[in-house]
């Protein structure tokens, strides 16, 4: 149990996928402008990450390991692409408002390295199935935390008088790097919390 909590907190704070590992920056910068699309996107990412891990982990353990590990990237991308397409179809039918808000960002989850990153990192860290699921849920929650926090930062920035050269993406990128620096302060927290 303690192991699971450590993995969860680690994935959310210490090894935040967006702010510490720099994965998934595209939707992070693109969708964090409005709070409801940011939360909607994050929930979709949590769902895709968990489902992707649930499907790819058994495939890796039972089919690819130990002789065909070189197929890992190919097979994982195939599965993730199919999953995201499924999520898009389901969203369009049941929550069309969210589907039209996210628009182009849904297919972006497919090529988003954060989802592939979770599935590959689960393998690299040699987690068992339960730990992998917890890790991917944590990664999704970390994504949510990063998006919502950054949405707040962004709303504050865009209300201000910014020099013309910095307006738009430059100021956002600088803010993102400062937020990620702030998250560096969490390193070492996990061992202390559950020691």
């Amino acid at each position, binding site marked *: 149990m303690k192991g699971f909590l450590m993995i969860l907190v680690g994935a959310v704070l210490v090894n935040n996928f967006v702010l510490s590992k720099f994965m998934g920056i595209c939707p992070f910068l693109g969708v964090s402008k409005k709070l409801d699309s940011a939360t909607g996107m994050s929930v979709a990412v949590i769902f895709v990450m968990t489902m992707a891990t649930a499907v790819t982990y058994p495939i890796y353990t039972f089919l690819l390991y130990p002789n065909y590990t070189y197929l890992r990237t190919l097979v994982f991308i195939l599965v993730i692409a199919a999953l995201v397409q*499924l999520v898009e179809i389901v969203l369009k039918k049941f929550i069309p408002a969210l589907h039209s808000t996210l628009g182009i960002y849904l297919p972006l989850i497919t090529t988003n390295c954060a989802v592939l990153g979770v599935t590959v990192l689960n393998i690299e860290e040699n987690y068992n199935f339960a730990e992998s699921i917890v890790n991917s849920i944590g990664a999704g929650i970390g994504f949510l935390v990063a998006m919502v926090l950054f949405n707040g930062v962004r709303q504050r920035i865009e209300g201000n008088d910014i020099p013309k050269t910095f307006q738009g993406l430059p100021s956002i990128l600088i803010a993102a790097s400062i937020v990620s620096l702030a998250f560096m302060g969490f390193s070492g927290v996990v061992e202390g919390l559950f020691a």
Partner: protein
Amino acid sequence: MNTIIFPIVVVLIIGGISGVCLAVASKFFAVKTDERVTKVREVLPGANCGACGYSGCDGYAAAAVGGAAANLCIPGGAEVAKKVGEILGVESGEVIPMVAVVHCSGNSNVTEYVMDYEGPKTCLACNSFYQGRRSCSHACLGYGDCVSVCQYGAISIKDDIAVVDRTLCVGCGMCAKQCPNHLIEIIPATARAFVACSSCDKGAYTRKVCKAGCIGCKKCEKSCPSGAAKIVNNLATIDPKLCTNCGECAKQCPTGAIQFCMPKIGTKA
């Protein structure tokens, strides 16, 4: 052999299962889209100019099926309005043909450069640098930001300023949005006279910086029979709704700031 066959089979099976799942899902979870939206979208010109007020032709197709007016597409003109009206089963209103006019005649014959500009060769960049390189600060910059967005090839750079070809211009308004000096205006195509100057500076100063600039002498205002030409703030303006296309203002103008064009083919000028 096994090491080759096994991976091929595995990947094929995974791909096959994914494909089947997706096909089943798209059948069961299909959302009914109104097929009129696709039909309307097909008759629209596809320039995505936004003149209708919606986000591109897709946006207007969706809005039209939802009840928006059928005659909002200006580049498409009366034909498209009629077709959209037929698909939707409504009366299409009249579409007034529009054209773009460039309110500047400061070409290389009548103005000079005041700097050797070596920055990025776009109007937006040049204008942000001390208001451009010509002697008149309101002038056309001549780098052709408007030319690059025109999808009909109607605007081009001649003698260093932008010139609109009325036979090709459909009045979509993309060039007007692009110009950093806001020199381009979209007016009804029936108006053939327009003031090719945007300088509100005093007449003596304008004369120094541009030989074809409007000096606010009021000759057009006095000679206009319908009261369309007026001087506002040292600059002549012609109201296209009142203009009778007599051409007197262009004849009277001492600097040649007022231009009088040939009628656009197909309009009642």
